[in-house]
C-alpha cells in the first residue's frame, strides 16, 4: 500500500467546491457543499456515503462533466474550473471515468471496437491498422478476447461490459480515474474480479483512483485513504486502516457497524450503532451539524444544532467534522 508522505504534491486538489442544482421555486439541491480534499499520485481514495449524499456529483465535478457552482479544482496545479472548450477537452485525456451502470454506459449502436477507439480518434492519436492494434491490445489488457472487437455491447455480460468500460477509460493513458460505483451493479462473484483487475491495472499503469462506493466494506480492500461523505459534506478523511480501527465521526461508526462480520461471536458482542430517522433533505439541510437529527451522541441545540463542526485534524492524517469526536466508541 502507498503510504502518504505529507509533503508530496497532490495530483488533484479540491478547494471549497460547491454544487447546487436548481430545484424550482428558488429552491436548490445542495448536492455538494464546500468540500476540500486532495488526491495524491498513485493512491486510491475511497469515497463512501449513503445514496444521494453527492458522491456521483463530486465525481462528475472532478471530471468536469458538470460545472461547479463555486470553488476550484486543481489538477496538477491547473484550475479545471477555469478551463473551457478545447483546453478542457485536451485535459480530459488525463482524467477518465468508469461508470456505475455497465448497461447504460456503452452505446448500444456501436461495436465494442468503435467504443474503445473513440477516445483515440478524438485526439487523433492513432489511425488505421495501428489504431485497431491498440484497441485489440486494450481488450487483451482488460482480459477480453481481442477478436470480439466487432461485437455489440448487448452480447456481453455485465462484468464483461464493465471491462469494456475500463478499456475505454484506459485508452488515453489517463493519470486519474474516477470510478463511480464500478461494481455495485455486478454479481458478487464478478465484483472481486473487477476489483482485482483495477488493482493490477493501477500497478501496471501507475494510475490514481477515486473509488466511489456506498458502503465501507467495498472500499476497505482497495483504498489507501477513505473519505466519508454525508449530505454533501465530507465528514471524515483518514488512512484506510485508521478509519476502520478508529473512526472519529459517529456517521462513519454507524457505516462500519453496518458491515457484517463473518465471526458470529464477535458479531454478537459488537455495539451496533443504529441510525435513527431518514436521511435529511439536501434541499433544506439541518442547521449546525447536518448529521444531528440522526446522531446518537448529539447535544442539541448547543453545539450540534447551531454550530457547524469544521473538518479538522483529530489525529495524525486523520480529519473529522464532529464536536465530540473523542466520544465516538472505537471499532468493534
Amino acid at each position, binding site marked *: 500500500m502507498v503510504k502518504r508522505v505529507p509533503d508530496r504534491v497532490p495530483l488533484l486538489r479540491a478547494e471549497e467546491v460547491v454544487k447546487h442544482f436548481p430545484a424550482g421555486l428558488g429552491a436548490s439541491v445542495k448536492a455538494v457543499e464546500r468540500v476540500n480534499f486532495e488526491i495524491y499520485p498513485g493512491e486510491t481514495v475511497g469515497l463512501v456515503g449513503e445514496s444521494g449524499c453527492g458522491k456521483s456529483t463530486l465525481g462528475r465535478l472532478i471530471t468536469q462533466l458538470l460545472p461547479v457552482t463555486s470553488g476550484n479544482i486543481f489538477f496538477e496545479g491547473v484550475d479545471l474550473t477555469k478551463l473551457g472548450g478545447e483546453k478542457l477537452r485536451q485535459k480530459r485525456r488525463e482524467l477518465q471515468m468508469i461508470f456505475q451502470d455497465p448497461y447504460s454506459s456503452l452505446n448500444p449502436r456501436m461495436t465494442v471496437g468503435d467504443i474503445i477507439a473513440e477516445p483515440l480518434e478524438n485526439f487523433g492519436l492513432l489511425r488505421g491498422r495501428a489504431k485497431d492494434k491498440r484497441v485489440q491490445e486494450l481488450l487483451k489488457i482488460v*482480459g477480453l478476447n481481442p477478436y470480439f472487437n466487432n461485437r455489440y455491447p*448487448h452480447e456481453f455480460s455485465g462484468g464483461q461490459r464493465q471491462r469494456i468500460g475500463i478499456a475505454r477509460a484506459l485508452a488515453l493513458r489517463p493519470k486519474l480515474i474516477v470510478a463511480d460505483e464500478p461494481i455495485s451493479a455486478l454479481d458478487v462473484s464478478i465484483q472481486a*474480479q473487477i476489483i482485482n483487475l483495477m488493482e493490477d491495472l493501477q500497478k501496471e499503469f501507475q494510475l490514481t483512483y477515486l473509488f466511489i462506493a456506498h458502503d465501507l466494506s467495498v472500499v476497505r480492500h482497495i483504498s489507501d485513504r477513505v473519505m466519508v461523505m454525508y449530505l454533501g459534506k465530507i465528514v471524515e478523511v483518514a488512512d484506510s486502516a485508521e478509519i476502520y480501527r478508529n473512526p472519529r465521526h459517529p456517521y462513519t461508526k454507524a457505516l462500519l457497524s453496518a458491515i457484517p462480520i463473518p465471526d458470529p461471536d464477535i458479531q454478537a458482542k459488537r455495539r451496533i450503532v443504529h441510525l435513527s430517522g431518514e436521511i435529511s433533505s439536501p434541499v433544506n439541510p439541518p442547521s449546525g451539524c447536518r448529521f444531528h437529527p440522526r446522531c446518537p451522541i448529539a447535544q442539541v441545540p448547543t453545539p450540534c444544532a447551531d454550530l457547524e463542526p469544521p473538518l479538522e485534524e483529530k489525529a495524525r492524517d486523520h480529519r473529522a467534522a464532529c464536536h465530540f469526536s473523542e466520544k465516538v466508541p472505537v471499532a468493534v
Partner: protein
Amino acid sequence: MATAPGVATPEEYVGDTLAREQTSLWADAWRRLRRNRLALVSTFILLLLVVVAIVSAFWTPFPIWRQSVGPTYDPPSLHHLLGTDQRGRDIFSRLMVGAQVSLQVGVGTQIIVAALGITVGLLAGYFRGWLDGIISTIINIFYGIPDLLVALILVLLLGRGLDKIIFAIAVTRWMDMARLVRGQTFALREREFVEAARASGTRPNKILSRHILPNALGPIIVQATFGVPQAILFEAFLSFLGLGVQPPTPSWGAMAADGFHALRIAPHIVLVPAIALSLTLMAFNFLGDGLRDALDPRQKR
C-alpha cells in the same frame, strides 16, 4: 478467478464466451416486424403501390392527358378497367399516375420534415438554454397557426408545382418531428454513454451524429412513417379544394373532386380514388404501428 490481466494467456480471457448470440439491434427489429401480419400485408400493398408508381412513369394503358379516349362516365369494363371520368379519360391510368403523386408528396414531405425536425430537435435538445428557448417558441408559433392557412398562403405565393406543394405541406408538419427529436435528445444526453463520450473528449457534432441520432432513429422512423399518410391526406384535401397539384396532373384528391358533382350517376369516379387513398393511408398506419412495436426499446434487454 481470472486475475493478472496484463499477462493473461488467451485461454484465460473472461470474454471468450459471449452472453448472447450476435445480432444487431436492427436485425432483431426486422424479425419482430415480420411476425406482425398486418404490417407485413401493408408492406406488400405499399411495395405494389411503388411498383405501380414507377411503371406509370413509363407506361399507362391509355394516355392520361388525352380526353375522350372513351365515352364519358363509363362504368368499369374490360376495356376501361376502372371506367372513365366526366371528360372520358381512363381512370385506371390516372389512378396509376396519382399513386406517383401521392408517394412523392408523402415521402418528399417527410424527407424535408426529417431533415428540418432532426436538425432543430438535436440542437435544442442537446444545447438547451437560450437556443432551446428560441426553437421552442418558433415551434409553438407554428403550432398556433392553422395548417390550412399556412399551406394556402404558401401555395398562393409559390404556385402549384409538385415541389412547391411538398414544401408547403412540410412547413406545416415539421414541428412534431422537431419536438420528438428534442425530447429524445433531452433524455439521451443524460445517459451514461453520452457522458462517457464527453469524458473522453468527443466533440458535440460527433456526440450528436454517433451517439444521440442513432439511438433516436427508431422513434424517428416511426414518426416519419405516420407522417407520410398525413401528408398524402393533406395534399388530397388541398387538391379536393382545387388548390393542390396543378391539373392536368392527376392527384387522387382532384380525381375525387372531379367526380363529386356526378356522384349519383357515376359513383365510381369518386369511389376509385377514395378507396385507393384509404388503402394507402391504412397501409402506412399499420406499417407505422408494426414499426413502433418492432423498434420499441422498452421491449429490449
